[in-house]
């Protein structure tokens, strides 16, 4: 039985006791899957499993507070569920986690670029097949094959958790770990290579086109303040309505700092950005810092206390300045 069929079977069994089960289904075209809310048995057959399941369904869990829901997760998504549990933002008794091994998902922006290089538009995608390590997209009658490794999301290239960290129903064989030690993150390496003033210019360049839609925030499973975000509060007045790089970047700093020690690097902020702004780099940098300082990784241990919610009398890695 395929992973997908096995998932469907387990979901059908559990559905009667659940408000809904959140997963993925086919979207408006062959290249896009979209979140699915299974509320009846007929919906179960719409479920998809594979490289186009790019969204992190954990984002919806806090909105179902008090109701028992199921969620289908990839390994990376499961870390968000764990982090939500760590912070007691959802109740373990009210979530049933379905999962299977994940072989990686695509980054649609990369597929778009590949098609563009072949003189085609992602907006004309007609058919997508993922066969082992190859993705083939047919657009405007022409088929273009691309290695999954070249169009996979960055996170997949360095994936440590192809299998869920926590699951109630894990079906099929576990997916193999990414071979070899994960290489250093290319985004961080590029930013590291810049001078400090160049980085200022970098953010000035990218943030300029931000439209302040807050897709980065709303797609983030850890941004649980939702309707009460300080970005839209007048008291305190953290951000003004001026259309300036200062205000736009300041929001990214708010988002990143509020995720310090909590971000599982699912990449939804950047994937959701309609303007292709590389906002994930800020969180990657913070995660590296958190790891260096506190040897901590978010969303892998339900019992762990996030590092900024605890302290040591003598910190191991903080060298205070002497005057």
């Amino acid at each position, binding site marked *: 039985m395929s992973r997908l069929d096995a998932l469907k079977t387990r979901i059908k069994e559990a559905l009667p006791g659940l408000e809904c089960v959140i997963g993925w289904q086919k979207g408006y075209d062959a290249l896009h899957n979209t979140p699915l809310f299974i509320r009846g048995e007929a919906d179960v057959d719409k479920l998809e499993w594979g490289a186009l399941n790019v969204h992190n369904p954990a984002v919806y869990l806090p909105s179902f507070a008090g109701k028992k829901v199921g969620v289908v997760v990839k390994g990376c998504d499961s870390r968000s569920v764990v982090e939500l549990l760590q912070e007691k933002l959802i109740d373990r008794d009210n979530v049933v986690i379905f999962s299977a091994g994940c072989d990686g998902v695509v980054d649609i922006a990369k597929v778009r670029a590949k098609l563009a290089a072949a003189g085609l538009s992602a907006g004309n995608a007609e058919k997508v097949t993922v066969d082992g390590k190859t993705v083939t997209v047919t657009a405007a009658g022409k088929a273009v094959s691309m290695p999954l490794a070249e169009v996979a999301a960055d996170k997949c290239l360095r994936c440590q958790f192809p299998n869920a960290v926590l699951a109630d129903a894990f079906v099929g064989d576990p997916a193999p770990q990414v071979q070899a030690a994960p290489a250093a993150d290319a985004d961080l390496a*590029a930013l590291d290579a810049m001078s400090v003033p160049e980085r200022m210019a970098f953010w000035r360049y990218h943030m300029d086109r931000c439209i302040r839609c807050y897709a980065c925030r709303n797609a983030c499973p850890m941004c649980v303040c939702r309707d009460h975000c300080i970005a839209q509060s007048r008291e305190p007045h953290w951000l003004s309505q001026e259309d300036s790089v200062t205000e736009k970047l300041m929001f990214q700093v708010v988002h990143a700092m509020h995720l310090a020690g909590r971000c599982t690097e699912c990449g939804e902020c*950047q994937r959701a950005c309609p303007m292709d702004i590389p906002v994930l780099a800020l969180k990657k940098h913070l995660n590296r810092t958190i790891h260096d*300082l506190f040897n901590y990784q978010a969303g892998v241990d339900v019992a762990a206390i996030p590092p900024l919610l605890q302290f040591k009398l003598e910190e191991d890695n903080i060298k205070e300045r002497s005057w």
Partner: protein
Amino acid sequence: MPVLTGKELRIVGFLCNWCSYGGADTAGVGRFNQPTDLRIIRVPCSGRIDPLFIAKTLINGADGVLVSGCHPRDCHYAEGNFYARRRLEVLKRFLPILGIDPARFDYTWVSASEGQRWQKVVTVFTEQIHALGPATRHENVSPELLAKVASAIQGGNRVAA
């Protein structure tokens, strides 16, 4: 606020009420010579300082930010400064990725009796900021540098395209 152009820079200090604000007061009462660039904001505890206070201050153009609280184990609220230490260290390491020189921000501990230590901290930090000069804001990046960085970005979603 009027700034003595070319002489003073805009340095903002966040000082805890119980130790460092007292330390600054001690330095003042003792008539210790101090640079005058620092504008002090008194907060209840270093643990009350949201790192975003500092980030916002710097992003909006302050030339430097100094935070000072009670020495570890001496916090008036027992452990506020322990939490602060973690947050402030994370922030200090975060600033360079934004394009802000981490030397524009420092945090330290000064007790109410340490007037001389306060004098030293303020003097050293102010000199450090003067060595860096006035801060550039993201809005005011030079067109040349902007063009250089923009041309290095080949497009696509990636930082390192």
